[in-house]
């Protein structure tokens, strides 16, 4: 909502620098989105008279214009617009003028022809939004006059305010002025319009009836006479233009002016065209048709409202747009002025589905003030000038209006919510200037909600008004006196630890978007059952990821295309899956994936080991296994305490080629929910022996098919509790080992908690280990 400072000042003696007033408006909850000082920026722009137009010899889209800028001498200007004619008066920005957009006008050549200034469109000089052609000024203009003087534009300030849905009253200049007056503690008054009344009483001229009271709460009609349709006075055109409306003629302009000033939209009918001089307000019939003011034939539904005439034909869509059959025209002499209160929900629905939203419908949607209508009608007539007069009387019909609420506001509740220390008198003084009249009742206040605040319906709404006018910034800042303290859940702490550990291991955290293109899951070797987005913005972002792998592989693709290789990344994020059986929401799980570009499987094993150690998982196994997408042989399944939590190894080369990645990629993928639900972290000190240990080295020749893990397990079982450590330290193939077999060399460390082992004890273990391995695996001990 835009407001002009000069207009606001018609309702209250507002004081202060424009910047300060802007601050005050923001503190009132009417945030200033933009502030423009009008008038000042027109310095250097004068009225010029067009003398001659001719084509530019060297350019089709420019013409040469000769103007008289006040000294009688022709001045040559190049111009890209063609809407002017000789004799027209237009704005000319003279050399040296600084335009509102900061550009300085200088003498320059356009395609070989000199231009000594610039002719302006309305938009270029902040006079409205029209930028299609040069602004043609009125015929009474005089060349050489400064434009500001010619248009009667005084130095003024235009504020563009953000008005929230709960402030329907602020969609009117008067409403904004009321708020400012309350802030500045100055009196606010809407001047009483001065109008004359003549002729027959309106009840002898027309009739009106509300047939559907749910549609319309108040339908009022008056008759205005003595009007001739013509241009509005310049000052009125300036004001509505500044506020974003386009001048049409005096009747339409005044309707918009009153709407902008008092918040009450209106519609005017050429009474001569209203059959029977009768208005009926009712729901439309299904399929009922009307041709609206824009010339479009529309078909309505039973949920739209209409104003119909004496023959029950629609002459207007209620609250949205009038019909063309009763449109005001040059020949109109008697105007029926309608002002109404329409059911907000109805107008919202109708305007939306018809695609007809206007300043009027926007106000009806939020709820207008039914009690402003009488004064607004008088103001309407006043603005039409001294020739216009009203017929005495008003046809005023009522439907269902919302009940004017009286709300009990407890002083203790006000202070309890806000943290203030206000008494009854303070609160009454705060509320009175914004129209909330209250009276003390015991320790409370009964507040009457003003008719222009339909948004206020409960005690808490009034408390907000109290806080707002008291001043949010005056409320003392405190902190809760709670005795609780903050903490993270175990899972949150673990996730932080995971991130810190991975970063500490030299990896970078990546954050690709969780959407994939169709086919990308399959390219990564995964199932194509990703949950689809129903209304994606682009097809490339239409599948929700079921694994973090594709997103990270795409990250490698992107970086490799920029010649950045060797990336070491991880992501801890959510993945989305179809659940096994139907449930309210899809399965959403957290996953950790790390990829090391240019590395082999061994590298990622180190990453996993360090991570497991950090989290406190000491008991895990890596078992050769390969899920889709991973390398067939260089991959293992991770089992922690017997539970599969993920995989590590290398990415399948065919996947890498589909993602256009030309390096080997080691990869770790862990289901975090599975992993963290396994008990971990707590470590109790395990004492170790102070007694000396004995080492045994054993090398066995075994068939290729025998895994080192199996041999290791066998040795562990056989050696028993005396074995404190066992390592595979060598794998050997070739002479003198037989073909199809290899040598596995283990170092065993034996130690007792309570004594030094004797040679006999060590020799026994040595012998029994050899026997059991040789027997179980047809192995041969190597010397």
């Amino acid at each position, binding site marked *: 909502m835009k407001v002009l400072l000069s207009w606001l000042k018609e309702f209250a003696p507002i004081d202060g620098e424009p910047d300060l007033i802007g601050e005050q408006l*923001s*503190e009132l*909850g009417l*945030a200033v989105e933009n502030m423009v000082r009008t008038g000042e920026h027109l310095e250097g722009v004068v009225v010029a008279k067009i003398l001659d137009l001719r084509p530019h010899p060297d350019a089709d889209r420019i013409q040469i214009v000769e103007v008289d800028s006040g000294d009688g001498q022709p001045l040559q200007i190049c111009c890209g617009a063609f809407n002017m004619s000789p004799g027209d008066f237009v704005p000319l920005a003279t050399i040296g003028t600084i335009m509102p957009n900061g550009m300085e006008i200088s003498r320059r050549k356009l395609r070989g022809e000199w231009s000594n200034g610039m002719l302006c469109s309305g938009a270029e000089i902040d006079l409205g939004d029209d930028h299609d052609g040069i602004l043609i000024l009125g015929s009474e203009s005089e060349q050489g006059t400064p434009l500001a003087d010619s248009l009667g534009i005084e130095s003024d300030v235009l504020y563009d305010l953000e008005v*929230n*849905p*709960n*402030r329907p009253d602020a969609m009117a200049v008067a409403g904004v002025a009321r708020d400012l007056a309350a802030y500045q503690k100055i009196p606010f008054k809407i001047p009483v319009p001065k109008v004359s009344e003549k002729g027959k009483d309106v009840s002898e001229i027309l009739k009106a009836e509300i047939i559907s009271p749910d549609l319309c709460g108040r339908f009022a009609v008056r008759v205005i006479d003595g009007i001739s349709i013509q241009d509005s006075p310049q000052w009125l055109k300036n004001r509505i233009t500044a506020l974003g409306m386009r001048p049409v003629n005096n009747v339409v302009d005044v309707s918009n002016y009153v709407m902008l000033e008092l918040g009450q939209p209106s519609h005017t009918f050429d009474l001569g065209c209203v059959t029977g001089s009768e208005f009926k307000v009712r729901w439309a019939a299904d399929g009922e048709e009307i041709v609206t003011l824009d010339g479009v034939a529309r078909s309505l539904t039973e949920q739209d409202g209409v104003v119909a005439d004496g023959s029950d034909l629609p002459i207007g869509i209620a609250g949205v747009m009038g019909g063309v059959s009763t449109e005001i025209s040059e020949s109109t002499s008697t105007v029926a002025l309608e002002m109404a209160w329409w059911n907000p929900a109805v107008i919202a629905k109708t305007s939306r589905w018809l695609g007809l939203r206007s300043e009027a419908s926007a106000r009806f949607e939020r709820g207008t003030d039914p009690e402003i209508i009488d004064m607004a009608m008088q103001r309407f007539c006043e603005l039409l000038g001294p020739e216009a007069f009203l017929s005495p009387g008003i046809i005023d019909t009522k439907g269902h209006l919302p009940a004017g609420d009286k709300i009990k506001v407890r002083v203790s509740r006000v202070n*309890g*919510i*806000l*943290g*203030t220390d206000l008494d009854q008198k303070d609160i009454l003084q705060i509320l009175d200037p914004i129209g909330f009249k209250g009276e003390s009742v015991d320790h409370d206040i009964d507040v009457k909600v003003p008719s222009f605040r339909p948004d206020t319906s*409960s005690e*808490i*709404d009034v*408390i*907000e008004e109290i*806080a*707002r006018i008291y001043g*949010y*910034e005056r*409320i*003392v*800042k*405190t*902190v*809760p*006196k*709670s005795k*609780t303290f*903050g903490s993270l859940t175990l899972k949150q702490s673990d996730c932080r630890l995971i991130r810190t550990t991975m970063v500490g291991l030299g990896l*970078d*955290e*990546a*954050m*690709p*978007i*969780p*959407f994939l293109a169709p086919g990308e899951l399959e390219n990564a070797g995964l199932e194509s059952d990703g*949950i*689809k*987005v*129903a*209304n*994606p*913005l682009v097809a490339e*972002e239409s599948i*929700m990821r079921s694994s973090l792998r594709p997103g990270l592989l795409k*990250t490698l693709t*992107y*970086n490799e295309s*920029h010649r*950045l290789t060797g990336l070491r*990344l991880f992501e801890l994020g*959510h993945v989305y899956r179809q659940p096994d059986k*139907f449930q*309210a*929401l*899809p399965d959403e799980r957290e996953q950790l994936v790390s990829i090391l570009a240019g590395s082999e499987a061994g590298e990622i094993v180190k990453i996993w080991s360090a991570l497991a150690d950090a989290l406190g998982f000491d008991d895990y196994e890596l078992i050769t296994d390969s899920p889709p997408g991973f390398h067939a042989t260089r991959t293992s399944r991770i089992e922690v305490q017997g539970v599969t939590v993920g995989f590590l190894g290398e990415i399948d080369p065919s996947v890498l080629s589909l993602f256009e990645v030309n390096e080997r990629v080691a990869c770790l993928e862990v289901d975090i929910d599975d992993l963290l639900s396994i008990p971990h972290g707590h470590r109790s000190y395990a004492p170790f022996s102070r007694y000396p240990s004995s080492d045994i080295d054993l090398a066995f020749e075994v068939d290729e098919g025998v895994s080192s893990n199996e041999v290791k397990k066998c040795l562990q079982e056989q050696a028993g509790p005396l074995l404190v450590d066992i390592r595979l330290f060598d794998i050997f193939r070739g002479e003198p080992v037989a073909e199809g077999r290899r040598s596995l060399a283990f170092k065993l460390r034996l130690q007792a908690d309570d004594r030094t082992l004797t040679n006999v004890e060590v020799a026994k273990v040595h012998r029994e280990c050899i026997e059991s391995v040789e027997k179980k695996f047809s192995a041969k001990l190597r010397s």
Partner: protein
Amino acid sequence: ARDMYDTLYVEYGDPMSTLLRTHTSPVQIRVMEEEEPPIYSIMPGRVFRSDTADATHMPVFHQIEALVVDRDITFGDLAGTIEVFTSAYFGKDFESRLRPSYFPFTEPSAEFDIRHPGGKWLELGGCGMVHPEVLKAGGLDPEEWQGFAFGFGLDRLALMRHEIDDLRELFRNDYRFLAQF
């Protein structure tokens, strides 16, 4: 924002029945339903909107909400908590202010700005006292419990703090960006 215009829906169950959340505020309701007051909780999370990606918008981004529900929590506590956060995160020199605004789930509602001395006020997020109707929806008696909530965008905060000029950079994962942080 249940407006079709803003929300991304997924094909799951009945048509248009399942959506990607557009803000983290729904978590407040869940917390109130599942936890007994006093509640002092923070809810960071990912949110989704049908927004074409540009320098200041992404279809996926991050928000954080705070919800406090206890006896005797006041608007003054809200203002003070935001001030403490502002100083802690941005620096002791920074100040914050609250301006009246409107949100359907808080009353009084406010927007909060921060500023460095000599600088301009920058809007950071929204806040307010939890509306009594919301407390009721969460199974709490508004005559016994009251509270405040505030929320703001995290990505924007990161952009501001590190002077990153394009939001998309956070999601692009160009190594030259990742290596800087």
